[in-house]
């Protein structure tokens, strides 16, 4: 048998096993190849590795053709307008019709793109963002009853990890050099500061309430809720692309809408729908906190579920305080 035929046989048997459809005779044939041929073992490992990569890419949504086709359709809209300009030279009336149609469609497309971004943001995928304060609020006295370091006042340089609903970790550096962690997993929430005790509660919003709950000072850090609100309460438009790999939208809060930042700019990857950068301007300041801030995507690589449990962030003998 030639090397090519060997490879074809190995590939077929390997893929049957990896896709769970090999019968016993096929398993035996593959076993024999792996037992006797080092080249077969090497090639099998490469096939298994590619299968593993596709599993991960698939789970991350990277294979979704509809996303790609969807955004290609948006790109086609731009090409259509180019074509329309050329057509205008030959037939102004036709071009004018196309142009008007294009202009009428454009806001709808921006909203549709936003729908996609919101949908992707709802997926159970790990994302890690850095937080930067662009404009601090006026130096008012911090709200009382929140300890010496109100969460909203120490967001510059913080890091936010998110995954599924209720799964987050926010890491803040405090002025005294300590690190404060807020976190939530699917069974509740927790917080710890410096080397102090870990406070744990079955209430998923108990410790992150100041930051994540809709009435909190900086509720915008709950991206899912915030993005969902965008659809209802904001006017959305495309902004010029800064690079072919990134699209940019701007959302301006409607006059009658209450709460949330007045203006949001978001950059997203058209291939994946993942937000890469988000700027929130003119935030409501009921209880302190910054005026404007920026989130920048650091990573969307997966993290284990355990990362969102408090045990992953402290030594085993740290005191645990259970709260309601």
């Amino acid at each position, binding site marked *: 048998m030639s090397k090519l035929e060997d490879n074809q046989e190995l590939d077929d048997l390997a893929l049957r096993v990896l896709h769970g459809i090999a019968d016993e005779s096929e398993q035996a044939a593959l076993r024999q190849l792996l037992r006797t041929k080092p080249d077969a073992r090497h090639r099998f490992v490469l096939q298994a590795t590619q299968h*593993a990569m596709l*599993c991960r890419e*698939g789970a991350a949504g990277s294979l979704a053709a509809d996303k790609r086709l969807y955004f290609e359709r948006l790109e086609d809209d731009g090409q259509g307008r180019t074509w329309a300009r050329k057509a205008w030279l030959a037939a102004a009336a036709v071009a004018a019709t196309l142009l008007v149609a294009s202009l009428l469609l454009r806001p709808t497309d921006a909203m549709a793109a936003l729908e996609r971004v919101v949908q992707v943001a709802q997926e159970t995928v790990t994302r890690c963002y850095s937080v930067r304060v662009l404009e601090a609020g006026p130096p008012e006295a911090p709200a009382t009853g929140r300890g010496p370091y109100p969460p909203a006042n120490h967001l510059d340089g913080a890091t936010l990890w998110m995954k599924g609903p209720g799964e987050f970790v926010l890491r803040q550096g405090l002025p005294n050099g300590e690190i404060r962690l807020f976190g939530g997993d699917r069974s509740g929430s927790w917080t710890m500061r410096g080397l102090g005790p870990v406070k744990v509660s079955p209430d998923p919003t108990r410790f992150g309430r100041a930051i994540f709950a809709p009435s909190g000072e900086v509720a915008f850090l709950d991206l899912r809720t915030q993005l969902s609100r965008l659809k209802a309460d904001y006017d959305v438009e495309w902004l010029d692309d800064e690079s072919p790999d990134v699209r940019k939208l701007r959302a301006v809060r409607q006059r009658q809408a209450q709460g949330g930042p007045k203006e949001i700019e978001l950059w997203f990857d058209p291939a994946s729908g993942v937000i890469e950068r988000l700027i929130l301007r003119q935030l409501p300041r009921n209880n302190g906190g910054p005026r404007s801030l920026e989130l920048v995507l650091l*990573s969307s690589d997966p993290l284990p579920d355990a990362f969102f449990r408090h045990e992953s962030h402290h030594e085993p003998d740290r005191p645990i305080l259970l709260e309601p």
Partner: protein
Amino acid sequence: MSPPDSHLRFTKLFVAAQPSLYGYLMSLVHDRQAADELIQELAERLWHKFPDYDASRPFVAWGIGFARYLSMEWRRQQRRLPLPLDDATLEALAEAAEQDVPAQDARLEALRDCLRKLTDRQREILRQRYEDSTPVAAIADAAQRTPMAVYKAIKQAHLALFDCVTRRLGHTSP
């Protein structure tokens, strides 16, 4: 090192090594669900053992020792395996998988590039199979086709990717 520093360092190292460790697990267990569960367990074990990690060693090489142990343990516990293997063959396969680990980052990058070159049909069949881990038979049922027809379509797309990645990396097929 304070716990938050330690966890950040661990997270950074684990996230970078995760594709390689997951590929290694798949090479030995041949089952997605098992690989998914084992990578979670591996993360927990590595985290608990992290104080013992010698930073002069590559993290992925350190992790592979644990991944190998977990894979073997998992195989011993199964009443039915996707591919039963004798110990000598399994050891030889583990060695081959270990040798392949250093090239995984470049392979993943090439694969992502090659995914863009697939036809829409190829990409769609891979999406159906891999996005929610839908079994071949379920895809066939939904599409009113035979499982063999679906398998052939998946195989064709998989091999197109494999050839593209091999060309991109400038390798000849083993």
